[in-house]
């Protein structure tokens, strides 16, 4: 027997056996007979639709379930050998770090250094070792320059890193992350995922990451665990997961995998690099001297509706009525200043020119802090400009990032009384929920109710003049709910409204937008057809665009069409 064989087996970083859990007063269990093991040093991705049990599983592992939330639990959970059901979250804090979806809700100190130091202070570490641990974790996450900053001056990406630092400072063996990139722009999101990968490789930290945007993190993961209705539906490597998703739940497919599914190419790609390699080795696209992919890409002559200039909306066309104006909203040479910190006034918008036509669907994109929300707030009259002009015809309905802010009463019908309210509820498909308590609605329904509140009284018969603006409407949404939202946006545009949607979600923008306005540091750095803007870069490009690198090809369907043509030619 070798020496290795005589060594004791490593304690799993996480072991769950037959875990079933129900929240207090819940009719059905949130977790059903969940069993899984995570080895030390694994990077596991937790996939699944909304309400499939991902967050509950993470909360059970860190001890919040059942110690904080109550409820009934069966089975066994061990984290690094510690019984998580018997021990509370305090005892588990030494071996588990937890980062929630919204970092704003898990920051308790005023300054960054105090926030990172707090877990060590709670643990009773002496000042010298606290100072060293804070310095080291700050260096590891590249945030030493933030240590003296107040937490309310940080951007979303910076705050997420601080939350991660607070979770890592005790050097836990297991780190749990609940959709940490949902509020980040594509650049910050990618940076965070690869930072996790580096920590996993260099520090040996075991990672369990719940995420909806699988295309962003699948390539970094060693293993995927898919949840469905509280149970583990799949547990295996990323490539096998894609094959499973193709057969069982296409809403979990990544865009590149969808592209390959539609084209019939195998194996399904885990990431952009895989996809490019597979395509490069496929005879169909190896045209011997010429590039059939590029010759098959006929973006300029395509008849796709997305790239056509906005035509009068269908409802107005049917009624034979011309739109009252060619612009729903127009901003000319718009300058906006905001105070940052103390007395530091900064130009957030610098001479912006933007117009949106009735029936046009426009995505407003850019990094965190580029000025997207400020532009929407200025158009809606919440923020004053220091220079420039805003022309609005027919009013603006703005849905801000947190729909719950619009809900102040305990009955849907009380929020939207009268015929105008009922019409708004009908518009968003919630006329049946008039007697419901807004808090009992699902996340998607609450968002539609908030939109109805913003739209109430603005309708002219069935038509909807003016602009409908949405600020980051897809935070925490799975793909099925995003598809519902795309349908709602199309319906609003058909009724004559101009749509301006600020989003970080490139795939969502590709699905709904005919035009993309890209902001960078307060100026418009790109404004053009979605197919052009979303295929012309790296960060602000869809996964399909990055795989194929062809002008005008941004969705799996467009990519499949090009590949089919290439196959026919090749």
């Amino acid at each position, binding site marked *: 027997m070798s020496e290795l064989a005589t060594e004791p087996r490593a304690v799993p970083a996480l072991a769950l056996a037959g875990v079933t859990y129900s929240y207090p007063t819940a009719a059905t269990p949130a977790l059903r007979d969940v069993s899984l093991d995570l080895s030390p040093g694994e990077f596991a991705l937790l996939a699944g639709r909304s309400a499939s049990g991902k967050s509950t599983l993470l909360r059970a592992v*860190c*001890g*919040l379930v059942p110690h*904080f939330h109550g409820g009934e639990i069966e089975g066994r959970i061990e984290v690094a050998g510690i019984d998580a059901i018997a021990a509370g*979250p*305090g*005892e588990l*804090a030494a071996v588990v770090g937890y980062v929630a979806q919204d970092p*704003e*809700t*898990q*920051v*308790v100190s*005023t*300054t960054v*250094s*105090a926030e990172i*130091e*707090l877990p060590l*202070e*709670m*643990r*009773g570490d*002496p*000042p*010298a*070792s*606290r*100072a*060293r641990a804070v310095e080291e974790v700050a260096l590891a996450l590249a945030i030493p320059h933030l240590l003296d*900053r*107040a937490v*309310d*001056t940080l951007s979303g990406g910076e705050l997420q890193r601080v939350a991660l630092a*607070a979770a890592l400072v005790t050097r836990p063996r297991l780190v749990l992350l609940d959709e940490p990139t949902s509020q980040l722009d594509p650049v910050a999101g990618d940076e965070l995922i690869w930072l996790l990968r580096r920590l996993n490789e260099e520090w040996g930290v075991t990672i369990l990451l719940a995420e909806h945007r699988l295309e962003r993190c699948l390539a970094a993961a060693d293993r995927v665990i898919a949840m469905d209705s509280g149970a583990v539906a799949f547990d295996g490597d990323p490539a096998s997961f894609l094959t499973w998703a193709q057969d069982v739940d296409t809403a979990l497919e990544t865009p590149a995998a969808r592209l390959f599914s539609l084209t019939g190419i195998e194996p399904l790609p885990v990431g952009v690099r895989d996809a490019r390699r597979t395509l490069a080795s496929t005879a169909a696209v190896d045209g011997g001297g010429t590039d059939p992919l590029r010759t098959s890409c006929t973006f300029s002559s395509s008849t796709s509706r997305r790239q056509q200039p906005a035509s009068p909306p269908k409802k107005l066309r049917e009624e034979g009525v011309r739109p009252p104006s060619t612009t729903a909203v127009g901003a000319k040479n718009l300058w906006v200043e905001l*105070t940052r910190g*103390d*007395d530091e006034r900064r130009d957030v918008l610098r001479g912006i020119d933007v117009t949106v036509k009735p029936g046009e669907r426009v995505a407003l994109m850019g990094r965190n802090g580029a000025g997207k929300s400020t532009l929407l*707030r200025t158009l809606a009259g*919440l923020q004053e400009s220091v220079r420039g002009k805003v022309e609005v015809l027919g009013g603006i309905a*703005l849905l*801000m990032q*947190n729909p719950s*802010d*619009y809900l*102040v*009463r305990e009955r849907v019908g*009380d*929020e*939207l*009384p*009268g015929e*105008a*309210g009922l*019409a708004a509820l009908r518009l968003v498909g919630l006329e049946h929920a008039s007697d419901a308590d807004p808090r009992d609605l699902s996340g998607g329904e609450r968002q539609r109710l908030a939109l109805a*509140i*913003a739209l*109430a*009284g*603005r309708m002219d018969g069935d038509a909807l003049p003016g602009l409908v603006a949405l600020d980051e409407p897809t935070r925490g949404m799975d793909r099925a709910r995003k598809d519902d939202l795309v349908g709602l946006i199309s319906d609003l545009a058909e009724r004559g409204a101009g749509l301006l949607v600020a989003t970080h979600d490139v795939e969502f923008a590709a699905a709904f937008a005919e035009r993309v306005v890209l902001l960078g540091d307060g100026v418009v750095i790109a404004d053009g057809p979605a197919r052009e803007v979303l295929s012309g870069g790296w960060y602000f490009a869809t996964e399909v665009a990055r795989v194929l690198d062809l002008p005008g090809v941004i969705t799996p369907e467009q990519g499949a069409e090009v590949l089919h043509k290439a196959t026919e030619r090749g």
Partner: protein
Amino acid sequence: MRSPFAYVSRPRPLQSASPGAAVVYLGSLIAVAFLYSNPIVLLAVGLALVIAGRLAGAHSAVRAALWMGFTLALLIVVVNALVVSRGETVLARLGEWPLFGQVDVTLEAILAGLVLGLRAAVVMVGFAVYSACVDPDRVLRALRPIAHRSALTATLVSRLVPVAAADAARLRDAARLRGPGAAPVGRASLARRLLAGSLDRAVDVAATLELRGYSLDSRRRAAGATFSGSEGTKKRFTRWVRRGTPQAIGGRRSRFDRRFYAVGLVVLASAIAGKALGADSFSEYPTTEIGSGALTLAVAALIVLSGLAPLRRKSHRRPSELRWVRNTHATEFDRRAPGV
């Protein structure tokens, strides 16, 4: 939108100073404002605090506090003029008023109100500079060994109050964005919604504290009593920290500490001594008399000068030093004769 009084970290002496030094310095000036009634000294304290605040970069905090302070001072002047009829110089007889009785507006009552208002404004500026320049986390961490749970509660409040203010601003914006056909939102509804949101925030914070190990009894261990390690061994923490070992980030000292301690103590000692020697001579009634003797002026001048304590000296290198830096590989002759 951030409050103008919110703490902002800046590389300035007052922000770099340890909490104790900053509290001694600003506290001594505020104490003088309570100790003295002489308007010359009060004006000097106000001027010192404005200078200190501006040198520390807290322009918005000073401006906002002055605005609020003068508004409050005006209110005090009006109320004092209507309520107090003492004084020899009657400016107006306003007859019988309900509740007030006979109202005579006197010059002395107006001046007394001005002094009271000036004191209120000065104290507000002092606390505004403190709020904007002293890191609350470091102050509370200094207090934790004395009152762990109270200090943590205060930390949470200092964090959650601005968060609640931001929530309120968001709710007001959402109320403005409601369509004309939606039910209007009154202040009561907004307040109820804000309260519900604050409770949700509190639950989130409680969960975070649990995850950070709040339920562990850290105070006993941090205080250095005993610690049960994983093998059950007993260790003492207090002996681990020796002179020269790195200090906790919150407890770090600054090279400006001595300056602030010294200035604060000199101001306080001089003010007490001056008061004992009659520098605070001031009487409101029956006629207003403001002492402006040499002692009063000396105390006032000292206090105004103390406002310069947060001044950061810029390093000025002499030409020879500059040349030394540029010519690190130069010959010995070059270093001794930079002009050559």
